[in-house]
C-alpha cells in the first residue's frame, strides 16, 4: 500500500471524491492554482479544472456562504479555511446558517459540505496560526466536528464527512501533516512512513464518523484526546511507563461515548487533553460527561490537560503546548491519586 503523509492522504481523499462525483467542488484562499499554502489541494485544479477546484477571495464568511448556496443546489463543496484561526469571520454563516438549514427548513434544504482547516499549534505560528477552536463548533447543534490524527484516518474521515450529507468542520492538525510529533520539541521530525497509519489505500474507503479509536490499550488510566496530542500521549505512556489506554476520539461531534465509558469503567482514572485553552474547552464537555456516565467507577477526578487560558504565545510555545512531559505528569497524577 502507498505510504502518504497527511497532506498527501487528504489530497488523495479529495482526488477520490472529485473523481467519483461531478458534484464535488473544492475551493479556498490559494487552494486553486497554487494548491493551498500547505499544498493539500496540489494538482487538483490541473486535473479537474478551475471551476471544480478554485481560488476564492479572502472572505471566509463568503467561502462558507458559497458552500451553503452550492450545497442547496446539490453540489458537495469542500471549502478550505487557510488556518483555523481565520474561521471566525465565517462563524456566523456556520452557526446561524449552515448548521440550521436542515432544521429550519424541516429537511427541505440541506447543507452537506466539509469545511477543512489546518488546526492547532506546535509550529511556532504565534497566536494567529496555532489556534484550536474546536470547542466553539462542538457547541453548535447541526454541525459535526472531526479531527484526524494520522494519514489513514484523515482520508477515510474526509470521505465519510462529505458523504454524511451534513456539514462537517474538519480540523487538520498541521503539526503532524508531515510526520507524527511526540511532544518533545527538540526531537527531529519523525516520518509517517514509520507509522502503521501512514499506509493509505489509493482508492475510496471511509473511516466512520462517531467512532473513536483505541490507539493503545492499557489498564492504568484512560487518556481521551485527538489530533496531535494522540501522539504525544503515546510518547508519554512510553516515556513514563504508565500503562495508559489512549483513545483517539477522531470525531468530537458526535463523540463516541460508548468507547470512552467502557475504558473509564475499566481504568477509573482519566486524562482528557487538548491544546486549546482550558476554560470551556472540549475537555470540559468530556470531563462533564465522563463524571456523569462513570461516576461510580471514577477513582480520581478527571484531569484536564490543556493549553492555558491565555492567547497562544509565540516564544514560549512549549510552555503552553501540552508536551510529553506535562502529559506524563498528568497521567502520573491520575494514576497515583488515592
Amino acid at each position: 500500500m502507498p505510504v502518504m503523509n497527511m497532506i498527501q492522504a487528504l489530497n488523495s481523499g479529495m482526488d477520490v471524491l472529485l473523481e467519483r462525483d461531478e458534484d464535488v467542488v473544492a475551493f479556498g484562499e490559494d487552494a486553486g492554482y497554487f494548491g493551498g499554502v500547505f499544498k493539500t489541494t496540489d494538482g487538483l485544479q490541473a486535473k479537474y479544472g478551475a471551476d471544480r477546484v478554485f481560488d476564492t477571495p479572502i472572505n471566509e464568511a463568503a467561502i462558507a456562504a458559497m458552500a451553503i448556496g452550492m450545497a442547496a443546489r446539490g453540489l458537495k463543496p469542500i471549502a478550505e479555511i487557510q488556518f483555523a484561526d481565520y474561521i471566525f469571520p465565517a462563524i456566523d454563516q456556520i452557526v446561524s446558517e449552515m448548521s440550521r438549514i436542515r432544521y429550519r427548513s424541516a429537511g427541505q434544504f440541506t447543507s452537506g459540505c466539509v469545511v477543512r482547516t489546518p488546526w492547532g499549534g506546535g509550529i511556532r505560528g504565534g497566536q494567529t496560526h496555532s489556534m484550536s477552536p474546536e470547542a466553539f463548533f462542538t457547541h453548535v447543534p447541526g454541525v459535526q466536528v472531526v479531527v484526524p490524527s494520522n494519514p489513514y484516518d484523515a482520508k477515510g474521515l474526509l470521505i465519510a464527512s462529505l458523504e454524511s450529507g451534513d456539514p462537517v468542520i474538519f480540523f487538520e492538525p498541521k503539526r503532524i501533516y508531515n510526520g507524527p510529533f511526540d511532544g518533545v520539541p527538540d526531537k527531529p521530525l519523525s516520518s509517517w512512513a514509520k507509522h502503521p497509519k501512514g499506509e493509505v489505500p489509493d482508492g475510496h474507503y471511509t473511516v466512520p464518523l462517531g467512532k473513536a479509536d483505541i490507539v493503545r490499550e492499557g489498564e492504568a488510566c484512560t487518556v481521551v484526546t485527538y489530533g496531535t496530542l494522540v501522539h504525544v500521549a503515546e510518547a508519554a505512556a512510553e516515556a513514563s511507563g504508565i500503562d495508559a489506554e489512549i483513545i483517539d476520539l477522531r470525531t468530537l461531534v458526535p463523540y463516541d461515548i460508548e468507547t470512552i465509558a467502557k475504558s473509564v469503567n475499566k481504568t477509573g482514572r482519566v486524562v482528557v487533553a487538548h491544546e486549546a485553552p482550558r476554560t470551556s474547552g472540549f475537555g470540559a464537555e468530556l470531563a462533564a460527561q465522563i463524571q456523569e456516565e462513570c461516576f461510580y467507577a471514577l477513582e480520581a477526578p478527571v484531569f484536564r490537560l490543556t493549553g492555558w487560558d491565555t492567547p497562544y504565545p509565540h516564544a514560549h510555545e512549549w510552555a503552553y503546548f501540552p508536551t510529553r512531559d506535562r502529559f506524563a505528569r498528568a497521567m502520573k497524577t491520575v494514576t497515583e491519586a488515592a
Partner: protein
Amino acid sequence: MSNGETRFRVPAPPFRPGEEPDFSHLKLPKAGEAKRPDPTVEGRETQDLALGLVGVLDHNHQAVGEWDPKVSADVLREGLKHMVLTRIYDERMLKLQRQGKMSFYMKSKGEEAVAVAAAMALRDDDMIFPSYRQQGMLFARGRDIVDMMCHCISNSRDNLKGRQLPVHYTWAEGNFFTISGNLGTQFPQAVGYAMACAYKGEDRIAASWIGDGTTAEGDFHGALTLASTYRAPTILNVVNNQWAISSYQGIALGDAPTFASKGLGYCLASIRVDGNDFLAVYAATQWAAERARAGHGTTLLELFTYRADAHSTSDEPSKYRPKTEGEVWPLGDPIERLKQHLIGLGEWDQARHEQLEEEMTQLVVKSYKEAESHGTLHEGPLAPTQTIFEDVYAEQDWRLKRQRQDLGV
C-alpha cells in the same frame, strides 16, 4: 444632516415626529427618462442607472419610456391580484397576531410591487433567497395560502414543524429558500447557488433580497465580491424602504447617493428602480434576468420604496418618524398606481377592484378558518413534540436520542 452639534457626523433623517414631512428636496428623475441599455452592457456603463431611477408609470399612471416591459393586461391584472391579496393577507395576519393567534408578524405594506413584480418577471424555476418581507412572491408563485397561514400560526400543518418564527417561510418546491432571521446571510448564499446553477449548465438564476439597513453587513460585500469575481448569474436586490427599524437609510448609506451605486465599485450592473412601480420592477428584473442568463453576471437592483407600516409587530414607528411621512412619500402606493394604470388602459374599473378586494378578503378569511382547523400556536395541535429532535442531522446521534428520552417524548 446631523443631530445638533456633534464632533463627528451622525446622519439624521430629514424629519422626526412632530415635524412636517416634505420630500420636495428629493430630486427624483421622471418616469421614462432612464435609458434602457442592452442587457449585455458592461457593468461600468450603468452608472447613470445606478444614480438615476428607472420608472415606467408616470404621474398620470401611463407607461412611458424605454423600460416599459409592454406586458399584457392579463399579466398586469394578475400582478394587481397578488398585490391586493398580499396586502389583505398582511392586514388580516396582523389582526390575528394582535389577537394572540401568532407570536409575531411582519407586513410588507407599500412594498408589494417589489415582491410580486419580481417574482412574476422571474421564471418559476429561478431560485429565490428572500428576506422576511417578500411574502408577495409566494402568492405570485402560487403557494397555497392555507399552508402559509399554517406556518404563521405554527400549527400541526406548519411545513416547518413550528421551528421558525412566523413569516420565516420555506418552500423548496416553489424554489423559495428558507428565510433567515439573521440579516444579510442569504446574499452570498444566493451567489453560491447561482454558481452551482452555472456549474450544472442550467440557465436558472438565483435572486436575493435584503433591506437598505442590511447593506451595511459584511455579507453584502461578500456577496458582491463573489458575484463580481465569478460573474455568477444572480440578481441582488436591495429593498430600500428608507428605514431599518428606527434607523433611517442614511445610517447605512453614509455619503453615498444611492444604494444601487454601491454596485459600481464591483463593476456590477447597478440600477435604482422605482420600487412602487410594478412595471419598472418587472422590467428591471427581466433585464437583469436576461443579463444573468446570457452569462453577463450579476445585477444589483435598488428598489426605492417606503415601509408604509411598522417594522414588525414589535415596533412603534410613531416614536421615530412623523406619522404622515408615508402619505407624502412621493412615489405613492404600488397598488393604487397599478390600478390606475389599468383603469387608464380601460382594462380595469373601480367596481372590479372592489370585487377583487372582496374576493381576496373572502379567500383570506376562509383560508384562515381552514388553517385554524389544523391548530394554533397556543391551543394546538402542534407538530409532535419529538420533532424538535429531528432534522438536526440526517440521523439522530446518541445525544439527541437520550435527550428525547429525558424529555419523555
